[in-house]
């Protein structure tokens, strides 16, 4: 059996299973986006590109996309920095490292939708822990879900709490498999820890960092549970993201066809943005001379 057989043996089972599962949903969504399927008329007629034209001039949808840009960039960068710090500390060795490692992973284990309810009980204006603490130290309480900045704050905090452990574990995986030689060489050259970090650790971590950042951008863009439970996209639509917008159109108003159009648009925009982000990050972290 030639090398070709083994090549296929490794990749194809996974790839084909994946294609088998997703091909129908994808083709189906594309077909539906050219129909007029809605609450009063289900079925696959053909209305040309009218959904696509509506999407193009839907200011609410694009507003939600812009809001997502801010949310994705801010939370992902904070998670990356915090996650890297934690992973780097564990990698260097801290006292009771295994204990902290386990504790820091717990947020990842909580179910986001259930955790959102716990956050709700913390940020409830009347009986919540946050206002309770503020009151007990004599400060005035905050309208967590009625004012724009606090509402955004609650969602960002929940997101950072839940997903920084993901960055932490992903980056720790990268650190654990770094080769030893560059670090030995740096030690012999008398490099300071700071210099070693910027000149060796960070560049060596570039591929896995880019991987971690891209996957977090993908995941955080899908945020739904905490918005649904904490703010219901309010006040007004100040915390409405594309997923929430999509859910409203397709599963509460049953504009199935228009929902599919929005979903495909979202998919295309994400693929373009992620490709650009990957290219830019690869360029920034390209190997340079000393």
């Amino acid at each position, binding site marked *: *059996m030639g090398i070709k057989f*083994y*090549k296929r043996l*490794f*990749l194809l*089972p*996974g*790839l084909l*299973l*994946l294609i088998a*599962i*997703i091909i*129908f*949903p*994808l083709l*189906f*969504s594309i077909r539906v986006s050219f129909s007029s399927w809605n609450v009063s008329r289900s079925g696959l007629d053909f209305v040309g590109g009218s959904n696509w034209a509506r999407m193009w001039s839907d200011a609410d949808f694009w507003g939600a996309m812009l809001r997502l840009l801010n949310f994705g960039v801010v939370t992902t960068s904070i998670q990356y920095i915090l996650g890297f710090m*934690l992973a780097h*500390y564990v990698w260097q060795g*801290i006292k009771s490292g295994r204990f*902290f*490692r*386990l*504790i*820091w992973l*717990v947020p*990842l*284990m*909580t*179910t986001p939708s*259930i*955790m959102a*309810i*716990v956050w709700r*009980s913390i940020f409830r204006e*009347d*009986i919540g*822990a946050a206002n*309770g603490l503020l*009151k007990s130290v004599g400060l005035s309480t905050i309208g967590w879900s009625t004012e724009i900045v606090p509402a955004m704050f609650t969602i960002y905090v929940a997101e950072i709490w839940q997903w920084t452990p993901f960055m932490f*574990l*992903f980056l720790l*995986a*990268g650190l*654990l*498999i770094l080769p*030893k030689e560059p670090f030995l060489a740096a030690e012999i050259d008398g490099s300071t820890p700071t210099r070693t970090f910027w000149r060796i650790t960070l560049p060596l971590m570039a591929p896995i960092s880019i991987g971690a950042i891209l*996957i977090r951008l*993908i995941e955080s863009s*899908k945020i739904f549970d905490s918005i649904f439970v904490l703010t219901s996209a309010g006040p007004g639509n100040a915390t409405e993201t594309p*997923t929430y917008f*999509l*859910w409203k159109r*397709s599963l509460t108003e049953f504009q*199935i066809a228009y929902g599919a159009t929005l979903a495909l648009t*979202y*998919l295309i925009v994400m*693929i373009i943005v*992620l*490709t650009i982000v990957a290219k830019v990050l690869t360029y920034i972290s390209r190997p340079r001379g000393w």
Partner: protein
Amino acid sequence: MSRIFKYAFIIFWTLFVLAPLSWALVTSFKTPAAVNQGATFIPWVQFDPTLDGWQDILGISGYANLIPNMINSMIITFFASLISVTLGGLAAYGLSRFRYGWKYYGNSDIIFFFIAQRILPPVVLAIPFFLLLKNLQLLDTHLGLILVLTSGLMPIVVWLMVDFFNQIPREIDEMAMLEGCNPFQAFRKAILPLSKPGIAISAIFAVIFGWNDLFFALVLTFTKVKTLPAAVVALNGTVTPFWTLAASAIFSILPLLGFVFVVERYLAKGGFSGAVR
């Protein structure tokens, strides 16, 4: 100075992580009245703890019993993760060692294709997956949900493991093949033992993401197969029972905590320099 900062940061972060969890733990021992009176923090001093919230979810008070749901979740998560880690690991190894291609598309495009499966939110995929499983008569079955979850978990495994295998020197495979192994044996005998940290982390991610899926479970299963998150969300009513939900939040972490505690020991400092003779 940097030592002080380091431990200050570690303590700060640990407190931040524990704060909502301890609030949930405290809330789970409150009565409805204690919750609705306003925020209280210290049991016995500020309120009288009860086990009502916990009895409600463990079938003792006859309100709800989450244990069968937990078993469903375990079956589904186990098989979805097993398929994802096995097939995803193999695919990642192939993508790391061989060149695949079709016209202008190469390995990096195939890897991106995998991860692109995670872009669409479950909200979007719910309806087509519903129709798909309905036609295959897999609605409300373990197998149906396992297949759908696999499509979401395998991409994470591939994404992580390709980088991981890339770090393992090719000399190790070549050495094994010189000693008479075929490529698959080289993978199994020489690479797999070195890959424990990567497999451990992939498994942790797969299990956690599979365990916590809510949306697909809500749409694709109903009565025969109800997973833990779906059952917990169903407890929510017009008045949110924060005490029961807090108890179930803690309850649903416990199996994962046990799993991660066991698997986490494989995350030792590797470095493959010593592996090449």
